[in-house]
Structure formats: structure tokens, C-alpha cells
């Protein structure tokens, strides 16, 4: 475990050695702020003290910007620059490398998610004390975000481990996550035969996360995200092992 932790720590810190982490976090928060206050009249027009809008928009921001940027380099860059060989030939298991990298990247995403808490605190705590917030859905919402982001990061990690190009990793991850969001939107559902619709609803991130945002925690949703995460981590592990037989 401690080897995993060492790798995770290094990965996490390395984000702050380049402007990427700062830019993404700031951009993400700024975009969220804009959405929050202006989108469809903004938060102010909503007649309930809830964070519904925020919880709908944050996963999209994560999928379409934050996660692809954070995960694109994980393995691809190590392969491209050649640092992988020194890392792997230390006494580390391939699984520790994968899990460490996952934790490092997920950690940064969690920091971003935690940073979105700034808005509710500003509005319902200090300085604009807008009344009491229903904390249940907020907490379950954050739980949902954490689980969802683990799945998204593992998808990015898997894609990053299949290529040597960060750019490709970014676009493919973006595309995959984008699809996983829009397949669940009403527009696409109407056009599909029922059986496909069932599958689509099953894999859609939006439908999976919706429950959490309403304060309803379902075991099947938790299981879904955990399964995706475990599956993608295993896939990344295989992709890393593949080098031995190349």
C-alpha cells in the first residue's frame, strides 16, 4: 500500500508543478460561477434553496474539461517521455503503479469537487445567508460526485494507458465521457427503440447520478460507478502489462 501511496503523492504533487492544475481548477470554478449565476436566470431565480443546478452542471464540467485534462497524461506521457521504464523497474507492482496514478488523479479531481463547495458556503453560510439549505441532498450529491468522478478518472486512465499521445488521450476521453452524458438526455432517448433505451439508461452517467442529486442513494448506482472504476483499473493494468509481450 505504501508504494501505491508514494506514487499517488508524486502524481498529485506533479500537477502543481505545471500550470495545468491551477488553470483547470480556476477555469472550472469560473465556468461554474457563470453558470450558477447566469444560466437560465441563474440560481437567484430558483424558488427553492437547493443546489440542483450546480449538481447538474458540475459532472458535465468534470467530464468535458477537468477529467480529460487531468487524466490525459497519466500513462501516455510516461510512455511518450520514457519515464515509465525507470518507474516500472523500481520494485513496484504494475497494479501499484495503476492504482497510485488513479489515486493521484482522483485526488486532484476531489480537490476540485471540494472547491465547488465554495458556492454553497458563500450563499448559505457567509456572506449571503440565504436561508437554511436542505443538507441531505447536498451530502448525497457530493457522494455521487465522488463516485462518479472515480469512474470518470478510471476511464481517462484506461484511455491514457492505451496511447502514447496526450492529445489523443484527451480527445478520446472527452468523447467517451461526452457520450456517456448525452446518451441519457431526453433528446436521445426519444429516438431509440425501448430495448436500446434500457441499455442507454443503464450506462448513462446522467441518469445514474440523478438519484444522488435528489438525495436518493441507491445501491445499484453506487455499484455501477464502482464497477466501472474497477473494470477500467483492471483494463489499465492489462494495458500496462502488455508492454512485456510487445
Amino acid at each position, binding site marked *: 500500500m*505504501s*508504494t501505491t501511496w*508514494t*506514487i499517488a503523492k*508524486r502524481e498529485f504533487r*506533479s500537477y502543481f*508543478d*505545471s500550470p495545468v492544475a491551477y488553470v483547470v481548477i480556476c477555469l472550472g470554478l469560473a465556468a461554474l460561477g457563470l453558470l450558477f449565476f447566469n444560466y437560465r436566470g441563474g440560481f437567484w431565480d430558483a424558488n427553492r434553496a437547493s443546489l440542483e443546478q450546480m449538481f447538474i452542471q458540475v459532472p458535465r464540467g468534470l467530464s468535458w474539461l477537468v477529467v480529460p485534462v487531468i487524466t490525459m497524461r497519466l500513462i501516455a506521457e510516461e510512455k511518450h*517521455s*520514457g*519515464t515509465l*521504464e*525507470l518507474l*516500472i*523497474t*523500481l*520494485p*513496484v*507492482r504494475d497494479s501499484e503503479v495503476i492504482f497510485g496514478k488513479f489515486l493521484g488523479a482522483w485526488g486532484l479531481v476531489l480537490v476540485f469537487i471540494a472547491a465547488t463547495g465554495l458556492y454553497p458556503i458563500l450563499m448559505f453560510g457567509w456572506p449571503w445567508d440565504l436561508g437554511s439549505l436542505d443538507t441531505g441532498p447536498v451530502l448525497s450529491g457530493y457522494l455521487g460526485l465522488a463516485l462518479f468522478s472515480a469512474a470518470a478518472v478510471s476511464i481517462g486512465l484506461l484511455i491514457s494507458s492505451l496511447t502514447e499521445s496526450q492529445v489523443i488521450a484527451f480527445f478520446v476521453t472527452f468523447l467517451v465521457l461526452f457520450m456517456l452524458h448525452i446518451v441519457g438526455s431526453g433528446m436521445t432517448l426519444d429516438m431509440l427503440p425501448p430495448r436500446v433505451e434500457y441499455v442507454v439508461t443503464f450506462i448513462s452517467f446522467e441518469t445514474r447520478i440523478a438519484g444522488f442529486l435528489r438525495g436518493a442513494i441507491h445501491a445499484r448506482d453506487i455499484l455501477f460507478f464502482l464497477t466501472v472504476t474497477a473494470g477500467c483499473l483492471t483494463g489499465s493494468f492489462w494495458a500496462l502489462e502488455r*508492454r*512485456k*509481450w*510487445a
Partner: protein
Amino acid sequence: MTSDVMIEAQGLTKRYGAFRALDRVSFQVKKGEVVGFLGPNGAGKSTTMRILTCYQSATAGSATVHGHDVFDEPLEVRSKIGYLPQRAQMYGEMGVLEYLRFVADIRKINVTLFNKRIRNIVEVCGLGTVLGKDLRQLSHGYRQRVGLAQALIHDPPILVLDEPTEGLDPNEKTEVLEYIKQIGRDRTVILSTHNLAEVEEACSRAIIVSKGRVVADGSIDEVRARGGRVRYHVSIDEKNALAGKSAPAVGDVERALATLDGITSAKETPTDDRAHAFSLLGTRSTDLRADIYRLCVERGWVLLEMRRDIQRLEDVFKALTKSDELADRLRAPAAASVADEDEDADDEGDDANADDDDANDEGDADDEGDADDKGDGDAAGANGKEADEDDDDDEGADAPADKSKGKG
């Protein structure tokens, strides 16, 4: 297997698709040896080292490091090895000390021990001035030293260094070799290179590989003796001759020298315009210096210089690897080795140049051809032994060829 065998490779074969990068490579490295793993580019040196460090897996064959199987116990193997990959890349955004600390953390070295070791390592590797810098700010030479430092941090009994001096300037090369010699005093080291001067300087043993096969393996002197020939360097005055004789023409001199009994080839080597200089190859059992002197007196030539050298490792290396390499690679490796020799900035550079040109020149076929034939026979002889031992996994097709060569 005795306990002082630190590295043992048995019949390592590695295929990339249909291409065979390693073909039944077997060797042993004993405790305390500093072994030069020699071969032209593409011979399979890095592939072998990657298998030894469990970065890649062999298609067939096995290897043990410090008694641990590279396939079954990668963590144990890696913990015994300090490895410097070819063109080692480290995280550019990390500081030197930070990086070494990271490696030490993964190797489970606690802070006190790290602090104790790092002082010595910084001194041995000459890192004092760059400890605070980021890796990406360092020159290649300094990065290579950091690479050595990270390989030493756990005080490993075995060091695997893949072309540690590649791309360094001559001064840095000397320094790095110096570090390696120092490090090698109480460790087992296997270092790959295609620079022979380095092997002669730093190693006690050489393993020569070519196209994925071991073609020679033994102490430097044994390998050198394998060529079975000596080289004479002869310079003759171009402008003057003894009383009553005319100044010699280069063609005459060359012909006369080449036809001396016991000389297998004569080749002009570049000099200034006052002398004709030649490099002659002869068999090791005879000494032709007297004959050469007599010839000069007879013809009235003024002999300016004569030297008899035991064949250099470089000659053996070329003889053993060239025919193989030329077959499918043509100019590429020759060009690379010329570039490399030039960095050494000594007279060997010129020599290598001349030889390489010849190799690609059909006109000189008989002198080089001879050397190659001879070399091949020796090569197969060295290899034949091992091939016989582990023929069990065999691919039929290659085996007969091996044996017929072995006899020749």
C-alpha cells in the same frame, strides 16, 4: 548454480512479431565482475537488460538475478538491481533531491538511512552543485549522473547500466567511467556499450552480442586473443630514400608489404604528406618486424616507424559483428560507430573511419572478407558451446547452421 553467480541468462529469446531480437542468449555474471555487454546498435543489448530488470518478458528462456527468477519474482529481482536505462528519462518537473527521495521512498529507505547514503552518493556522482535544481534544467551529462545516483540509492549488489556514456562529451565520458569503476569495486556491474575503449578501460570481461546472439564471451584478453592476429603499423618516408634509390610510390610499397609471407592484409592509413603509412594484419604466432625491416633495406626505403600491436578489441568486435550487421543493415551501424569514435578525439577515430569505409567498398573485398570469415568461425565456436547445451527448446531451422559454422 553456485552462490556467486549474480546474473544468469539461459537461452533468452525475444521475438517482436516475426523479428527475433534475441536468439538464445546465455551468459553468467559472477559476483564482483564488471562486464561489458558489447554490440552494435540493434544487437539486443537493451532488450536483454529490460528482461533482466523485468520490464519486458522473454519469449523463451529464463534468467535469474541474485538467485531470483525474473519472471516469478520481479520485485525481489528489482530490489537487488540498480538500473540505468538507455537514455534514462526522469520526471523533469521534479528537483534532483526530490526525485532521489521519491526513488528512496519506493525502495523503502527511511529518512535517516537516506540522509546517510545521499552524502556519499552525491560525492561519488558529483551532484553537489545541482541538488536543488529541477531535472529538466540539467544537461544530459548531469541527468546521467542523477540516473547513476538513483541506481545506487539502495546500495544494490548488482548494477545494470544501459549505455551509460551515450551522448556524453569526452570529459563527461571519462568521469562517468571513473564513477563506474569506483562503484564497481564492490559490486557486480553489467554495462552495455558499443564503445570498445570504454570496455577496455572499465571492464574485466566482455560479452559481445550481434543480431541477438552472443558471439564472444570471456575476459578482455581472451576475447582479444580470439582474433588470433596482430597489427603492424609501418610508416615509410615518401620523399627520401637510401642512397642510390628512388623515393617509393605508394602502390609499390603496399604491394610489397601485402605480399610478405604471413601478412593477410595491408591498407594505407591517412598521414601527412611526408610518409606512407600502412596498417598490416598478420597472424599472432609470427613476428614479421624483422622481415619488414629487411624489405625496407632491400628496397632502399626509409623506415620512419614500426609498431606491432596485439589486435585491439575493436578489431575483434568488427570481425565478429560486421558480416552480420552488413547483411541487412548496410550503412546505418557503420555510420553510428564512426560518429561515436569521433567523439573520442583520438587517432582511433581515423582508423575506425578507414575500416568502415572499406567494409562498404566492394573493391577491398578480399582483405575484409578474410577477416570476416575468420571471425565468423570463432564466433560460432564461442556460440556453439552454448547452443549445444540448450538446444532442447529448438527451432530446428537454425540449429544445423549453428553446428556447421561451429566446425568451420
